[in-house]
Structures are given as C-alpha cells and as structure tokens.
C-alpha cells in the first residue's frame, strides 16, 4: 500500500532567521520515485526533515495520506529518513540492525541480512567502518525498513561507484516487488536520473520545478544558429532562455519550454539547429547555479 505526500505552502524558518523553505507546494503521489534536486543549502534536507516530522513547518502544512503526520504514530511508522552516513558508535553493525528491526513494523530482517552480504558490511563497531560502508549501512536501513515513504538524504555520496550502482539496483528491484514512495536527494544526477519518475528542483528554499522527468527532459532545448535568428526564434516561441554562448556570429541558447511541431519546422526553415540537453545541465540552469557542481567523490 502506498501513501500520498503533499506539502501545502510549507515554510520553515530556523531560529537564527534563515528561511530554509519558502511556501513549498508539492504533491508526490504514492509509489513515485522522486528526485529531489538542489544545490547545497537549497532546502532539500529541510524539506525531508518536515516530511519525517523531525521539524514542524513554521507555516503551511505537511500531509501524509491527507493527515498531519506530526506525532501521529501510525504515520511516522510509515516514513523513514536516511541521513548521510551513520556516524560512529560503540555499536556493532549487527546489533544496530537488530535494534532497527525492533522499531520498524515493516522491517524485513531476511532482506537486511542479504544487504549486509551484498554491501559487504563487516560486523564490527560502526565507528570502525569506512565512510563508504557507513553510508551503505545507512542505505540498508532505508531499504530493509520498507517504509511506504522512504527518503535518502544523499547517503550515496560516500559510496564508491560499484556500491552506488548496487544501491540503485536494489532501490529499483525492491520497489518493483514492494511499491513505495522513494525520495532521493542529490545534486549529482546523471547516474540516477533514469530512476526518477518525477523530479522536484529546489533553489534557495523555493520549488522551481516539479514535473515528470521525461517531460522536463523534453522541455530543455539548445537552439544554435545565427545570433539574430536565435533571438527572434526564442522570443517568438516564448521560450525561457536559461543561458547563452556566442562564437562569432553564432549563438547557442539553452532554452526551457514546450516546442510545438510548427515551431520546430519554423526553426528548421530559419536554419537553426535544435538539440536536446542533458538533464544535469538543465538542472544546473534551473537551480540557479552558474557552474556545474562537481560530484564530491
């Protein structure tokens, strides 16, 4: 069974006055794999902490299955937030896993055991695990917990590529057997983009995009040709120009907006070339970054 998630005008102001979220309206139908994108500090973690009821919105509402989840045991038991890598502790890995199993009604202990093998997490004190293994352990809590809404706050950043891909494969294969809502936050999207059914982009506490991944992809177009023709075309087609590059008289504009077949033909007639742009580039432009962020590996 899946659960719908909705944020209505949700805002979060921290005690120091920081506006972490400004009136977020976001609807995530149950069973969606959502990519929550944004630069560092855009509000991704804040948004997830509201959904996990770690914090309360200073304004607006969070609704899970149509209800406020705050201190609602039935709902909070069905939401999980996996932070970025478990910190060290005197706990042994297996004890920590056993303890988590006692708390989650939906926990699958056999799956947790399989994941310990898959990620090759040794049964030592958590403090003794490498950063990558601690991250993998955090991912294990999310996967084996089987919470109908499971959020991952970039735990994969600390993992090496094979482990990350193993994690993506598990998210997907487990999702197909046990459909649930999965929210993956990241600012490093190319390797996971194909997993996302929907994408939400945050910038400075505001939701700038919320759409199906493929619709978003279809909406990004690079228009290349003589500078004057490019300007005329983008203006007439009502496209939002996200960035431009010029070389001599040739201009390339990264644009955002729906293109009709008529507009496409008009572009061809005007000698303009239309090309797709990678989702990562689109994200970089929409999220207000001037430089593509490098993956921190």
């Amino acid at each position, binding site marked *: 069974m899946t659960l719908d998630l909705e944020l209505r005008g949700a805002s979060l102001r921290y005690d120091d006055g920081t506006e972490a979220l400004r009136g977020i309206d976001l609807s995530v139908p149950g069973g969606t794999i959502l990519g929550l994108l944004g630069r560092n500090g855009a509000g991704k973690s804040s948004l997830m902490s509201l959904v996990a009821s770690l914090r309360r919105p200073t304004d607006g509402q969070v609704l899970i299955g149509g209800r406020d989840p705050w201190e609602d045991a039935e709902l909070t038991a069905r939401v999980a937030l996996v932070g970025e890598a478990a910190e060290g502790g005197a706990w042994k890995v297996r004890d920590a896993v056993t303890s988590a199993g006692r708390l989650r009604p939906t926990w699958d202990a056999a799956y947790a055991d399989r994941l310990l093998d898959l990620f090759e997490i040794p049964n030592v004190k958590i403090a003794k695990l490498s950063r990558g293994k601690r991250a993998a352990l955090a991912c294990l809590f999310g996967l084996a917990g089987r919470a109908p809404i499971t959020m991952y706050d970039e735990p994969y950043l600390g993992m090496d590529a094979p482990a990350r891909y193993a994690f993506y494969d598990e998210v*997907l294969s487990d999702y197909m057997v046990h459909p649930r809502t999965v929210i993956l936050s990241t600012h490093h999207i190319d390797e996971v983009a*194909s997993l996302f059914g929907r994408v939400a982009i945050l910038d400075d506490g505001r939701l700038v995009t919320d759409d199906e*991944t493929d619709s978003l992809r279809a909406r990004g177009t690079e228009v290349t040709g003589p500078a004057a023709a490019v300007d005329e075309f983008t203006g007439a087609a009502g496209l939002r120009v996200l960035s431009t590059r010029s070389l001599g008289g040739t201009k390339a504009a990264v644009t955002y907006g729906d293109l009709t077949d008529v507009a496409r033909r008009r572009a061809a007639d005007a000698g303009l070339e239309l090309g*797709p*742009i990678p989702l990562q580039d689109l994200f970089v432009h929409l999220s207000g970054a001037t430089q593509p962020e490098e993956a921190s590996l």
Partner: protein
Amino acid sequence: MAAFDGRSPIYRQIAEQIAADILSGALEPDAQVMSTNQFAAHFRINPATVAKGFQQLVDDGLLYKKRGIGMFVSPDAPERLRARHRERFMAEVVDPMIAEAHLIGIDLDDVVTRIDQRRQDGHR
C-alpha cells in the same frame, strides 16, 4: 547508463531501440519482448518510464499484449516500420539532398544520372 543518455525523453529512446531491434530482425514477429520490470531492472530505468515507452509501441501497432503473459512483436511490425522509414527516407534524406544540390548549383539531372550509374554498378 548503458543504452540511454540523459537527453531526449527516455521512453522515446526505449521505443526507438525496440523498433530498431524489430527492423534488424533481432526481434522477430510474435517474439516475446522483455517485461517492463526486466527491462527496468536491466537498464536501471524507472518502470513507469519503461511502461510509457512500451505503451507507445502498442499504440503504434508494433507490439501486442497477451494478458497475464506479456508483450509480443506484432506480425506486421517489420512491415509497418519499413513503411514508416520509407516515408521518412523521402522527407529526411531525399528532400534535404535536393535542397543542398540546389544550393550549391548541381543540376538534378546530374543527380539522377549518378543514381542510374550506381544502379548499374550493382547497388540496388
């Protein structure tokens, strides 16, 4: 990601790839295609996206569903695809060639002559 780039909509890329397999004969008429879930797991793609790509192929008459069993290549799928590509060939290959010839001052008769020559050389 193996076969799919981050550019044009993935569901369209999926449809195009399966169409290419049908055209090349890798997928024969009435052959079963991978299930949505197998395809999603294999290429690490959201199953809803895969389903959308498959649905497009069903809408185009290239695949048909057998309830509870899976999806199969339509018997006339290769013919449909060839017909579709024939249409496209004129629009996407021949028309631009004519435009280009006109632009650089090649007489269309010369082009036709050339085509005849090649045909006699054994290109069919």
